[in-house]
């Protein structure tokens, strides 16, 4: 051990190519193997005498966690070498650019912060649903692909609920990158997916303002994370809209229970600014006064985060519901039945979000000679129908959002919305019984049921 391979060597069938990274923890080479259909890299740790023990453990953690994960938001796992014989990790080479390139150019325009933040939130949500928590979210650990999606790399500090946590210790001390650490991590808790939501907030703050909300504290300064509230982003850059500050400061709440319940909800808010309910957080222009700080400090003195069940249970208890309301040609009985079905689903415990959507034919922006047919008026009319439909549900502020989707293919539009917004459950009315050739042609409801990425409830009046 301690001998690093050279290009041209072969390890377990992998032909070693050029070295693309050499750092304190180890080296990374491109590798090839005849059966591999995508570019791959091999990560080899420095494990000689004199290397810190934690680097071995975090390499072991990365092997375990990466091999258990699937999907496009982590590098694809290929192979791992036995740590005691020949330690290495072969995975997909992610093509893209590190988020740290954007962080260097910060402050960025709010729209760019929102789209990068939303991509990162979607990637984290995917991880959490697979029972894993990253716990080292920072710009250099996020790759952005050309299509705008985010990939989480370096899972060396991650926690996966299916495996013993090799980084847990009897005497808790924080591990991770100090500027991005959540309050829970400061006290050694490694099982709350909302820790990643906090770090996501730090990253979004950094992208929006060009500054770190808590600076770069040493180990002694970390406890302040338990009570300190950062300077509001709008005090640093007046161009930041209130809704963006609202989302960022919600993520940075010291108490995990006051943060958005899941990364999916952050992704939703960042991609639908018009639906963010702006409160005191969003309007704040100064940091809290001394009395308020004292209150926060007192609360932190008794700080003891509650243990959590599986990471996915957090995402599952904060689901996003999509209800398709036919505002153009829905009959009253079906609309009422749809509302009852939604009422029952919302009655279950947990912080649900309801997205009410209708699909209308695209309206030409300039066409239409009659005043009431202009595009804007059309949309407003359908929004009003949606709001009226939802009114009897008596939802709280911020719990529901309303969307008029314009498309000639209603099923495709609903499916695209469900995928983009990581919807957990679609509720849709059943087609009328007397449509001719129904079985042959299919209907919107059946196509949605067939292709949706989630549970679908078809409601009949």
């Amino acid at each position, binding site marked *: 051990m301690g001998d690093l391979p050279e290009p041209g060597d072969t390890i377990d069938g992998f032909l070693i190519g050029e070295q693309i990274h050499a750092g304190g923890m180890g080296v990374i080479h491109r590798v090839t193997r005849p059966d591999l259909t995508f570019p791959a890299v091999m990560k080899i740790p420095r494990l000689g005498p004199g290397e810190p023990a934690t680097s071995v453990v975090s390499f072991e953690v990365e092997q375990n966690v990466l091999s258990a994960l699937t999907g496009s938001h982590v590098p694809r796992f290929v192979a791992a070498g036995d740590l005691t014989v020949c330690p290495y990790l072969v995975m997909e080479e992610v093509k893209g650019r590190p988020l740290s390139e954007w962080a260097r150019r910060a402050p960025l325009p709010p729209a760019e912060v929102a789209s990068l933040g939303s991509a990162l939130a979607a990637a984290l949500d995917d991880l959490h649903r697979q029972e894993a928590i990253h716990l080292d979210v920072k710009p250099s650990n996020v790759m952005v692909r050309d299509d705008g999606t985010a990939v989480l790399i370096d899972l060396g500090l991650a926690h996966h*609920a299916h495996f013993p946590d090799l980084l847990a210790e009897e005497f808790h001390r924080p591990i991770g990158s100090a500027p991005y650490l959540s309050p829970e991590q400061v006290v050694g808790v490694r099982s709350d997916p909302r820790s990643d939501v906090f770090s996501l907030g730090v990253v979004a703050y950094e992208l929006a303002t060009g500054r770190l909300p808590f600076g770069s504290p040493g180990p002694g300064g970390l406890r302040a994370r338990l009570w300190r509230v950062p300077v509001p982003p709008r005090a640093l850059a007046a161009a930041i809209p209130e809704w963006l500050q609202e989302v960022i400061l919600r993520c940075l709440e010291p108490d995990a229970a006051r943060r958005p319940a899941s990364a999916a909800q952050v992704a939703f808010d960042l991609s639908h600014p018009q639906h963010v309910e702006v409160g005191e957080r969003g309007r704040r222009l100064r940091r809290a006064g001394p009395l308020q700080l004292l209150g926060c400090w007192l609360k932190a003195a008794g700080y003891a985060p509650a243990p959590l069940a599986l990471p996915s249970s957090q995402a599952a208890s904060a689901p996003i519901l999509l209800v398709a309301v036919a505002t153009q040609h829905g009959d009253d009985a079906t609309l009422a039945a749809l509302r009852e079905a939604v009422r029952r689903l919302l009655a279950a415990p947990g912080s649900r979000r309801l997205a009410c959507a209708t699909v209308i034919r695209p309206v030409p922006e300039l066409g239409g000679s009659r005043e009431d047919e202009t595009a804007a008026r059309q949309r407003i009319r359908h929004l009003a129908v949606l709001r009226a439909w939802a009114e009897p549900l008596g939802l709280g502020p911020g719990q529901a959002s309303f969307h008029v989707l314009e498309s000639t293919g209603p099923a495709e539009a609903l499916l695209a919305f469900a995928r983009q917004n990581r919807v957990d459950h679609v509720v849709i009315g059943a087609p009328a019984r007397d449509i001719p050739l129904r079985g042959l042609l299919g209907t919107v409801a059946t196509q949605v049921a067939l292709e949706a990425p989630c549970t679908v409830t078809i409601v009949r009046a």
Partner: protein
Amino acid sequence: MRLALLADVHSNLEALVAVLAHAREQGADAVAFLGDLVGYGADPLPVLERVEEEVGRGAVVVQGNHDAAVLDEKVAAGMNPEALEAIAWTRRQLGPRERAFLASLPLVVRRGELTLVHASAADPGEWTYVTDALRAEECLRATATPWTFAGHVHEPILFYTAASDRPLPFRPVPGVAIPVPSRRRWLGIAGSVGQPRDGRTAASYALFDDVRRTLTFHRVAYDWPTAAAKVRAAGLPARLAERLERGD
């Protein structure tokens, strides 16, 4: 080798048959019984017959406190009234052959890099419950092997050494192969085949793969209504039937 680890069968034939079939499907080619073959349940004779068949195929068996209590009043002395009643009932069912078999069982077996024991390896005849990190540390200190497998607690749990010497508890998720490399120390408690107590009725066991170095905890649904009905029909305490129905 894929070694099926079966603890606390407790005279539950339905659970034992279901678990052995499941283990074979999972590719198990060896079986270890981690003690408490009898006690609580209504089928001591058929269970012992199945176990002896497995011994004929090379299975390893260690003795549990209920097995010992059937043979020795002193061991039974500290048990709760229901357990005690079941021990007395079991004693009446067994013949000299079965008693001789139970008496022949060792308290600890060491096989290569494995240690097999019913309770704690630190004091196997004291029947200590390994329910916390301190007890797990004592148990691991008494063994020299990377892997120790035990029963007695009736709940599946895996203790492992991380950064400090004090082992940490981990609640396994059924069906997930957990990497258990030999450079760490592991104490796997297999849960109970015949009387699960973690709120689930399904029988619990674990499968150790010594080539891939993984440990997989499994839960197997079995015919517990029949097992519970037999407990009632035998005149054993009703509470012992309810435990099977509720998994507590």
